């Protein structure tokens, strides 16, 4: 491999053998992600994949990369911090609909607000897979599961709408059955500077087979959809007849890593004239004050 150092093949992104059920949508999502990584020639050792808990959240093990299997629902804050500390890494947060929009819901809007330059991939099967088939926040109203024997009565979470509500800087939806489009979306998401949210519809054959629903309702966003038009994107997000796929919205805002880097530069510059209170004491103690030129 050392001869082709510069060229990563698809197999360079393969980790352990996935342990998903045969037919699980997550296989295709994993494939799309690996293809996107290969397309972008991300060095595996410069890649960090961070997930929560769930079938889908097992994904770090299946990719040859630095992985972090966080607790349930908290992939985003750690992924954002990884990027802050090391902006050179390609950082992917990944997980399920339960992980992201039930227990993890509190972190999503705030990560969107801070806009770290990372990609967030949600494998949405509208069910809790790992815990064997309970209703999830994206399960549709009326669904009967182990935990809704009297029918699910809740309005489902609309992840695309949620992202748009908080002015998420990149919002897209793909489906596991269209690996080509999903690959393209993931490439675009990684290339976008800022927080990129990709919802991948990824059916769970074992506990809630949504293949038919996905097949019947998914539709590419029209060519002429203006990805800078937030209200236009919202209209497509709210459409209950069609499950639109493609890039809904894209906007350039300062990223969290840009902001923290900018603050550092500002502060280091100020150190030369007026160091911070504790920096003064540090200098007294014999410490060397860091400045923008040092």
């Amino acid at each position, binding site marked *: 491999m050392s001869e082709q150092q510069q060229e990563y093949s698809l197999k360079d992104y393969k980790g352990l053998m996935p342990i998903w059920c045969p037919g699980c949508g997550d296989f295709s999502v994993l494939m799309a992600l690996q293809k996107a990584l290969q397309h972008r020639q991300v060095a595996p*050792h410069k890649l960090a994949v961070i997930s929560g808990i769930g079938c889908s959240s097992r994904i770090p093990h299946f990719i*040859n990369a630095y992985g972090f299997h966080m607790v349930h629902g908290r992939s985003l804050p*750690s992924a954002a911090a990884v990027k802050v500390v*090391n902006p050179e890494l390609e950082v992917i947060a990944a997980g399920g609909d339960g992980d992201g929009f039930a227990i993890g819901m509190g972190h999503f809007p705030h990560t969107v607000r801070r806009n770290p330059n990372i990609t967030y991939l949600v494998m949405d099967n509208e069910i809790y897979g790992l815990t064997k088939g309970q209703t999830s926040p994206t399960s549709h109203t009326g669904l009967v599961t182990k935990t809704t024997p009297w029918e699910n009565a809740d309005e489902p979470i609309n992840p695309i709408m949620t992202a748009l509500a908080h002015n998420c800087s990149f919002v897209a939806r793909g489906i596991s059955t269209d690996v080509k489009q999903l690959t393209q979306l993931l490439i675009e998401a990684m290339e976008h500077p800022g927080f990129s949210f990709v919802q991948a519809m990824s059916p769970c054959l074992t506990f809630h087979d949504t293949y038919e629903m996905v097949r019947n309702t998914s539709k590419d966003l029209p060519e002429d959809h203006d990805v800078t038009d937030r209200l236009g994107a919202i209209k497509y997000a709210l459409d209950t007849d069609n499950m639109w796929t493609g890039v809904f919205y894209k906007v350039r805002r300062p990223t969290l890593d840009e902001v923290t880097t900018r603050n550092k530069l500002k502060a280091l510059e*100020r150190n030369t004239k007026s160091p*911070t*209170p504790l920096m003064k004491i540090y200098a007294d103690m014999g410490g060397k004050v860091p400045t923008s030129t040092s």
Partner: protein
Amino acid sequence: MTDKRRKSTTIRLAGESGEGVVSSGQILTDALIEQGFAILTYQTFPAEIKGGHCWYQVRGSAHPLDTPGDRADILVSFNQEGFDTHIDDLRSGGLIIYDSDAVTPVDVPKAHLFPVPIGKIAADEVGSPRSKNVLAAAILARLLGLPEEELADSVTKKFKHKGAKVVEVNVKAVTAAYGLKLPEVEMDFALTRTDTETAEPIGAYAMTGNDALVLGALVGGCKFFAGYPITPASTILEAMMRELPAWGGSAIQAEDEMSALTHCLGASFAGAKVMTATSGPGFSLMIELLGHASTVELPVVIVDAQRGGPSTGLPTKYEQSDLNAAVYSGHGDTPRIVLAPSTVRENFDLTVKAFNLAEHYQVPVILLTDNALATRLERVTLPDLNTVEVEDRILATPEPDEKHYKRYKFTENGVSPFPVPGTPGGMYVCEGLEHDETGKPNYTGENHVAMNNKRYGKLEDCARRETGYYDFGAVDPDLVIVGWGAIAGTVREAVDRLTGEGLHVGGTVITMLSPFPLAVRDRLRKAKKVLVVEGNYTGQLAQLIEAYNPIVPEKLAVASAGLIPVESVEKVAKRLLNVQEVQVRE
């Protein structure tokens, strides 16, 4: 009696929040600091934003101080409530200064009264009702022996940024104060510096515990901080937001405490030295993540600046009741290190140590401070930087094309070299499921036993390397008094006094609560009696000692929203020693 005890004067100011109680105390404190005296303060704010009763205590001395003092030598009260609430805490023979237009003194035994129409003088004579605070501070400064010009200088410096007019008014207040006729009192409040040459150094800086802690973190190499505001840890977050960029790091205000610690774990995974700071309620929210850090073996320093509990509790009061939470919280067998500083200087030292231990052992380190320590201003010596040891994480150096890197490699002391993401060949999954050496999930019993051995092996190594407590007082004591956290100062002062009376009393301050410093056992076993002093209801340290020691320590566990007075400790100690009859010469 004073021969063994070092000369000090304790002043308490009390009144309605917003009336100038705190600012008056601060003016006096600043003047004392400028004049080179040691000071140690204690303040308690109402948990409400405006209004409510508050008080401020400052003790001054030419010698280092262990506590802010129990009883006041001088009490200043701006209103009746201040008078009524605090009069019992005035030392017998002490002085009470009060606004004669606002307070009617009732039934004051053994105290000297000094009625001053403070409000009226400020309004009429000085020409500004708001100058009450300077006026009171100046009266106190005078009683403490500070020359008028020095106080005027100090006040001028303090108000300079508010313009010449404000300075003028306040200097006038100083003049007015120095012109008052003082009452005759047998007690001498003046601070003297007669034996400065033999005295221990009192230090160059007056800092709060929280500031010392932040400095310790920065010196210790902290490069990432995330936190969520909560009293009394908010000032750590605020300082970090201000300081960290200037130190080449980043700080984030998170949306809650779980996000704060999660951010830290991500940053630590990426290779940075990280810290978060909170108080009890926030700490309770972090428990799942604390266990995660322990399992995935990521270094992180978690500050719990304790306040009165349980639940939202007493947000602005001192209490040391999170020991159990720090040592035991979390499902499963979850190793962690817990350090507890007991002075502002230790806040610096132990924060540096917290980072060193976190990085060395790749383990979460909890730093238990408390409201008293966090908010107190204390004069401290800081070490020369060259003497401060800073440890870094042992990094992995994998072969660039290594496969299945053993992130959790079994080693002698359980510590496995750490691959920073970006390092070729070090790829692994940082895994919170039970895992094998490579990080791959593994649920066999053998592996679980081996991994528990590895994780706890690190603590055992730490227990061998670190002392975790220190002793003072009698060499072969009949009684050992044990303390931790802010209350340890009380223990030091009590032991000082008791040994001064010829009693064989020793003191032990425990600064590491997990792993428990087992060597402490020997000392406690050898002692005829043991007394544990701590600011909580259930006697958490006493129980912890018992959990590791087949001895029965006596308890003095009080949760009364304030430091336990030295006197109370003395009293129980004497009871245990059957020496109630011992004559204390006055």
